């Protein structure tokens, strides 16, 4: 009972934000929800399987570019179709990349993912004709559940129907991930994280499980990436740059990778804090770097570790 109380309250809070918060604060919830979806996936890999990806922005990029391609080049505007395509493409790219990456752990895994991320980044930057290079591709306003909402102003579209659509995706993504980590599969992943040799001895195919976790996390990243597109209205290569991957890990750690909801909290705090600090001083990187150092040194379990130390 108590386990559900926190998330339920958070959900209610998310639902009433557009009704009570100023429009700009509501708009910031959109990247928060998109990042929350991305980080739920990233943490399946990091928190639950023990693999740190430093190239996850690759899949965010895949999702975002899928949406941009579909809406801008092919006239497919249905967000359901976009999300489905993003998930499929995310999985399709992740399948071979993952197969190569999961053969290694720790720093080598991190480096290989970083290298793949940079290949994708360089590709979208260099192949102007296809990807628009640094200009990127516009992400046209998608249809929601088949309804064309182009008549209402963008801000109202984003803070109304699109907002609640994102909430629905986030709730679904959270529920699925909850099921995944509580399933025997999730248990296997944790065993692999804690003791790969023991897992092997128990008959778990370690590489296969790692690969599955990799693909699932890529699907989440692609879904989140597709959700990031419409508020900006444009996708560009910086979404896939290695520092963006670094920020994703930063958010996860900020919220707490040892806790299921940690990454969600991390995304929330990161976005609102960045917004606050950026308006305050031009040197927000210094402050965020300091913050990250403090977390790594003094609070490795992140904010969730401070709020709910026992789990």
């Amino acid at each position: 009972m108590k386990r559900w109380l926190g998330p339920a309250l958070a959900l209610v809070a998310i639902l009433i934000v557009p009704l009570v918060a100023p429009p700009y604060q509501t708009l910031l919830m959109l990247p928060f929800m998109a990042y929350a979806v991305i980080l739920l996936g990233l943490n399946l890999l990091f928190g639950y399987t023990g693999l740190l990806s430093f190239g996850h922005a690759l899949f965010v990029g895949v999702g975002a570019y899928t949406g941009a391609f579909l809406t801008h080049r092919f006239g497919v505007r249905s967000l359901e179709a976009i999300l489905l395509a993003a998930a499929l493409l995310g999985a399709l790219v992740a399948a071979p990349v993952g197969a190569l990456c999961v053969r290694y752990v720790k720093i080598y895994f991190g480096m290989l993912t970083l290298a793949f991320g940079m290949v994708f980044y360089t590709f979208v930057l260099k192949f102007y004709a296809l990807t628009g290079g640094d200009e990127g591709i516009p992400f046209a306003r998608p249809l929601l559940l088949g309804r064309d909402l182009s008549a209402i102003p963008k801000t109202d579209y984003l803070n109304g129907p699109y907002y609640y659509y994102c909430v629905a995706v986030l709730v679904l993504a959270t529920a699925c991930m909850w099921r995944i980590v509580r399933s025997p599969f999730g248990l296997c992943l944790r065993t692999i994280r804690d003791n790969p040799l023991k897992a092997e001895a128990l008959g778990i195919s370690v590489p296969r499980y790692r690969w599955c976790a990799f693909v699932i996390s890529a699907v989440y990243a692609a879904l989140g990436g597709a959700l990031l597109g419409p508020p900006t209205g444009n996708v560009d290569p910086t979404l896939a740059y290695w520092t963006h991957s670094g920020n994703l890990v930063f958010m996860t750690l900020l919220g707490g990778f040892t806790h299921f909801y940690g990454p969600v909290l991390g995304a929330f705090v990161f976005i609102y804090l960045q917004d606050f600090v950026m308006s305050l001083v031009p040197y927000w990187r210094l402050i965020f770097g300091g913050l990250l150092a403090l977390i790594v040194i003094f609070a490795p379990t992140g904010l969730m570790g401070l709020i709910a130390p026992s789990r």
Partner: protein
Amino acid sequence: MILNVLLGGVFHASILFLVAAGLQVVFGVQRIFNLACGSFYALGAYVGVSAVAAYTSVGGPPWLFIVPLAVAGLLVGVVGVVVERGLLRFVYDRDETFQLLLTFALVLILEDVIRLTWGASPRSTSGLYLVYGQVRVLGATVPVYNLIVVAASLLIAVGLGWLLTRTAFGRIMRAAADNREMAAALGVDLRWLYVRVFTLGTALGTLGGALVIPATAAMSEMGIELIVEAFAVVVIGGLGSMRGAFVGALVVGILRAVAISVLPEIEMLLIYLIVIGVLVLRPRGLFGAVTA
């Protein structure tokens, strides 16, 4: 004229080697992949500009400018002590993920520290690059300063080789790299070793930055750009291996130069693809330890 292309590549490789060597020393002994090595490189560049500016303003002879430049580049390496004692020592017993993230935090911090100190405009040492003139080699015009940098880099490579194989400090470093518990049990003061190793790694990066600066200009993003290239170098050469850094730097530097003249579209893409190829086929790199 092919010589021009090759020399361009070798010049780039010399700088890459210094930064990558710093990365390798630290990774070899401390098992920390230092993302901030690019930021140290940038820091060295800015300090180098300031040192040369100060030197010029007190009226030092232009042809000796490389002395204050190199000294400043080496001296600013002491930030390594600060970083090691102030940050890294807290996370030695943690998962290497945290160590990596801590160096990512450093990347963010140093970028703004540089902007706070030197401002946003590019900084350069104006025309000093040309005081040593040029030589003509087989029809190609080569700035003497480039040759000095290449020679300095070679000298440092030899020096590092000597340090690692011929001195007590080098033997301790290699012992700790192989088995740090055993080294500690044999009486090696790991704390003191780590300070020295990290400072050495930092100083290699800052020296690289200082040496390159007469030929270019210091810009706040230079570190973030370089880290991915240095990363390619150490992966190709093999993590932790000094010989690997040397060969990897040459491979990346020359490949990049050749790609630019032959197929400029695929320049960096080619390097990343090689990185992936190496990681997939031979993850320990060309010279990496078998245990990796």
